[in-house]
Structure formats: C-alpha cells, structure tokens
C-alpha cells in the first residue's frame, strides 16, 4: 500500500503546490487523482516516485519510507505512463518497451521476448515491433507507453494524464483496455486526470483535489456522485451527476415485458393477441428476434409490415449487464418512451417503460441508503 502522510510541496518562490495531503492508496486497485489545472495532482503523482521531492511529510510504500532506497531503484519498481506517451523516438517499439528490463540487466533476447508478449497484452499487432514511434498513431503510441511501463512487471503503475491527448473514441478504447488489463494483472495504479468522467469510469477510489493542492474529497465514484462533500466538488462533478450516478445501478432488477413484442412475419391473430392494455405500442422484431422498431397495433397489417414506417427504438441496453443509465437513455431516445432490453446476441429480451425505469431508480435509491452500489456495474 502507498501511504501519503501529510505531504506538502512548497517551491522556493513560496508557491504551495500540495498542501498537507494525506491519502491511503489501496493495493491492486485504481486510485484516480482528479482536479482542475494547478491543483497539484501531477506534483502528487511525481512525489510518489520522487521526481519531485516533498518539502514536508513522508510517503510510505508498503510501510517503508520512499527515501530509504536509491531513487533509481525506486523508480524502476514503478511503471510510469505520461501524456503523449513520451516514447524514445530513436528506438524501435520493441526496444522502447524493453528499456527498463534492459536497465535491470536482462539479456537482449529475453527483454525483447517480454516486449513482444506485452505488445500482445496491450492490443498491439506484433508487426509493429520493428517500427519507430513516428510510424504509429497517437492511440497506438499510448499503448506502447502502457506496455513500456508494464515491462518489468512493477507492482505499481503511475499514470499522468495518459489518455488526454487522444480523440474521444480512441480514449474510450484505451480506458476499456486499461480496465481489462487491470482485471488480469491487478496492479496498484495511481491515475491523474482532469476529466471527471474518466475518473468516475475507471477509478476504484477518486481523490478530488482543489487549487492550492488540497484534498476536497476522497471516495469511491458512486459515493462521490451521490454525496459530494461540498459545493466545489459538486460543481466539479458537473450538472448531470444524477444521471451519471445511474451508471452504478444495475438494470438486473428491471421487470421486462415480453407481451408487446411481435415478429415481422406475425399473423393477424398473433398481432391481435399481443394488443394488451400494458403498452400502447408493439415492438416489431425480425425473424431472428432483433428489434426493428415500434408501431401502434392497429397500423400493423399481418404479412406486409412497412419497416420504413416503424418508430425508432433508440439504442437498446443489454438486460442485466448494462446499468439503469443505459436503460433510461434508451427509453428517452425512443419517441414511444419505452426501452428495449436485448440479450448479448442482440435479440430482444423484453421492453420496459420510462415509468418502470423510474420506479427502479427510486427503488435503487432507497436501497442505496443502506448499502453501497456494486462498483462492478459500471461497465455501462
């Protein structure tokens, strides 16, 4: 465990970058430091591997003062990923990744074999091994940066705004990849970002810092969204924290109706039988059970459904796996106000109304008062 114990960083000109900060960073989890620019989050990160020396206070790593071992030994025991990757442009990808193992005295072949293994782990094609960094896209370079940090299998990974310089689509991919790698490797990760959405998405614990290097709140993301400590944190979380908090409520509790669902090749009797008081609309599916769109029952003619006339069904949520946020989003996107739940193959599992989702949210809130939401549900 990394323990930051009332650490202050004061520069010679009197600026205080970090002010009596205390944090306990749990093992094998992702701890995110988040805050506006100038809040001292990067300084805090760099004090952990002593790229910045604290003015006061101590940092304990597994109970030992970080100043007890030689600085370069300490640094080689912690992987470091930086914005824009900071790759060595004069070395090939495989040699970039093999840097720390080589410094630790591994043989060339062993280090390169390890590098190739890591390329696979971070989702890079082996054919890129002999390329130089300029031949890779920004997202690929960042993956190399992660692989390089993991090369010597350090227990700790320090990540300084690693995904800030890539576009949103690539960033989402990199975040998902990081969560996947973390599931496999279980590193102690300290992650700095200014993006609260990123913090909430990947963090097991989130430390919100304010200008002047003070800790504003240290909590799991769901707790941060439900009960911000003060106006600063609430403001920093943004306006739609209520909606975002729904990401932590699983959709497994929703009661899905299979009544108002008909196949496109249904007979007139089948359509008539589906016309229930439960729903004003019927969801039409193709022969495989995948959703096509909504329709009023009386506009459906057996055998000749005009697919172009169907109302859109939004973006279906995966029933049970996705969060209530995804379910609500689907209901809001459809003009009928009903959400479509699908199984992992995309076949309709059932439909649910906005009202039912609203009830589920109220139920989850009532439950949330007694026990904390499951963090596993935040994949959605």
């Amino acid at each position, binding site marked *: 465990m990394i323990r930051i114990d009332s650490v202050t960083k004061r520069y010679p000109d009197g600026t205080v970058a970090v002010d009596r900060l205390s944090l306990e960073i749990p093992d094998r989890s992702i701890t995110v430091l988040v805050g506006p620019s100038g809040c001292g989050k990067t300084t805090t990160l760099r004090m952990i591997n002593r*790229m910045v020396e604290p003015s006061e206070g101590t940092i304990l790593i597994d109970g030992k003062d970080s100043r007890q071992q030689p600085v370069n030994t300490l640094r080689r025991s912690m992987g470091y990923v930086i914005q824009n990757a900071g790759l060595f442009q004069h070395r090939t990808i495989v040699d970039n990744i093999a840097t720390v193992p080589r410094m630790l005295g591994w043989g060339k072949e062993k280090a390169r074999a390890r590098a190739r293994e890591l390329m696979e782990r971070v989702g890079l094609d082996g054919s890129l091994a002999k390329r130089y960094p300029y031949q890779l896209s920004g997202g690929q370079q960042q993956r190399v940066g992660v692989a390089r940090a993991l090369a010597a299998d350090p227990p700790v990974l320090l990540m300084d705004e690693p995904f800030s310089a890539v576009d949103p689509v690539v960033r989402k991919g990199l975040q998902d990849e990081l969560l996947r790698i973390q599931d496999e490797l279980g590193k102690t990760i300290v992650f700095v970002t200014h993006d609260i959405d990123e913090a909430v998405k990947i963090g097991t614990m989130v430390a919100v810092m304010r200008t002047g290097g003070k800790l504003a709140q240290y909590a799991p993301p769901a707790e941060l969204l439900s009960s911000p400590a003060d106006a600063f944190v609430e403001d920093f979380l943004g306006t739609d924290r209520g909606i975002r908090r729904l990401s932590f409520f699983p959709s497994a509790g929703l009661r899905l109706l299979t009544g108002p669902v008909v196949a496109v090749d249904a007979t007139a009797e089948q359509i008539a039988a589906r016309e229930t008081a439960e729903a004003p609309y019927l969801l039409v599916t193709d022969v495989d059970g995948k959703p096509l769109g909504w329709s009023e029952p009386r506009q459906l003619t057996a055998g000749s459904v005009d697919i172009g006339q169907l109302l859109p069904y939004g973006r279906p949520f995966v029933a049970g796996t996705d969060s209530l946020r995804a379910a609500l989003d689907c209901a809001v996107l459809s003009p009928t106000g009903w959400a479509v739940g699908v199984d992992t193959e995309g076949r309709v599992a059932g439909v649910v109304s906005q009202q039912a989702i609203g009830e589920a949210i109220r139920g989850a809130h009532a439950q949330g008062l007694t026990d904390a939401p499951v963090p596993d549900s935040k994949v959605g």
Partner: protein
Amino acid sequence: MDGFFDIPSDLQHSWLGLIGLHVREAGLPVLAGLLISLPLAQLCVRFRWLYPPVLWVTTVLYAIPSLAFFVVLIDYTGQTELTVMIPLTVYTLVILVPAIVDGVRSVPQETIAAATAMGFGPVRRYIQVQLPIAVPAIIAGLRVATVSSISLVSVGALIGNQGALGNLINDANIYNRPELAVNAVVTMAVLAILADGLLVVVRLLLTPWMPSGARARRAERPEPEVAAR
C-alpha cells in the same frame, strides 16, 4: 587550360597532396570543435544562465580576424598547420554550440520525464536519450561548420605554405596563371559538396527513426490520426 593540374613546385605538393592537406586542415578543426562543443553545450543546457555568455564569447571569437590569431599564435606554434587549425576550431564553436544546445533542448519534455521516471540518471539520459535525438540538429550544424571550414583553410596562405588549395590562388597571382585559381576554387567547391553529401549520408544512417523526406514511409501510417509528438 594547359597546366591545369601542373602545380608549381614551391607548394611542395601534388594536386592530390594539396587536397589531402586541405581536407586535414578543414576536417580536424571541425572534429576538435565538436569535441569541445559537446560538453560545453551540455553545461549550457544544465545551467541555463551559462548559455547567453557562452554564445556571446563564441560570437566575439568569431569576429576576430584569422590574421590576428596568426600574429599571436605564430610565436608559440610557428608557421605550422596547427596555427591554421586553432582559429578554425574556434570559429566552429559559434555554429556547433547553438546547434547542439537547440538540438538537446528540442527533445520533448515528456520524453525526458519518461526517461527520468524509468530510472535514467542524468549522464545516462544525456548519452542514451538526449544526444541521439539531437543528432539531426548536430549534423545540420556540422554541415555548415564543415563547408565554412573548407573555404576558410585558404587563409593559411598568409603564413606561408599552410593554405593548401588556397596557396594555389596565391600562386596564380605570382605566376600569372589564372587557371590555378580556377582549379583551386572549383576543387574547393567540389570538396565542400562532397563533404556535405557525406554528412547527409551519415545522418540518414544514424537516424532511421526520422520521418524526414521519406514520403513512402509516411504513407504507411496505419491510421490517419496525427501522432502527437
């Protein structure tokens, strides 16, 4: 153009001999200048305040005419090649020091931070990261220094037989043989072009990691996304 290669005997060298002497008198000062500039530039990078005064001194030294250097040096080193090469060495500093400083400084902050975080000490970081990345800038400086040095060797004629191809111009005057001056100028120009080309080849060999000019390699980019460096 009779006697184009018929070198007067007072020069004590064949045409090829003159070229050899010229290359030596021009090349050694550039090498010596590089050896002085590398540590000097590193000091300027580490201690920022040192760079402006160093730049000022190298510029002032560059402004001293070679004749003035010769007058002082001749008491110590005589009418030798060394007397010619010392001022030439000094002159290269004004080009090489800024080239190396700018090259080393142009290494991205992220790269330096990443190296530090991976446990590179300052010396290892300089030799294994900063210097290799500065190679294109250093070679650009070397190209200018080399070409300038090749033309400046001629002033060696002022202290007797040390101007190499420059003495040929002097002899053209003495013996009224203008073809010797043409020979000297053309040979020096060709030498300069060859030396410059050689340095370009050295740069290409040392920097396979550079995207420069390799349009074909650019096209290989797997995604259109701009690599942020």
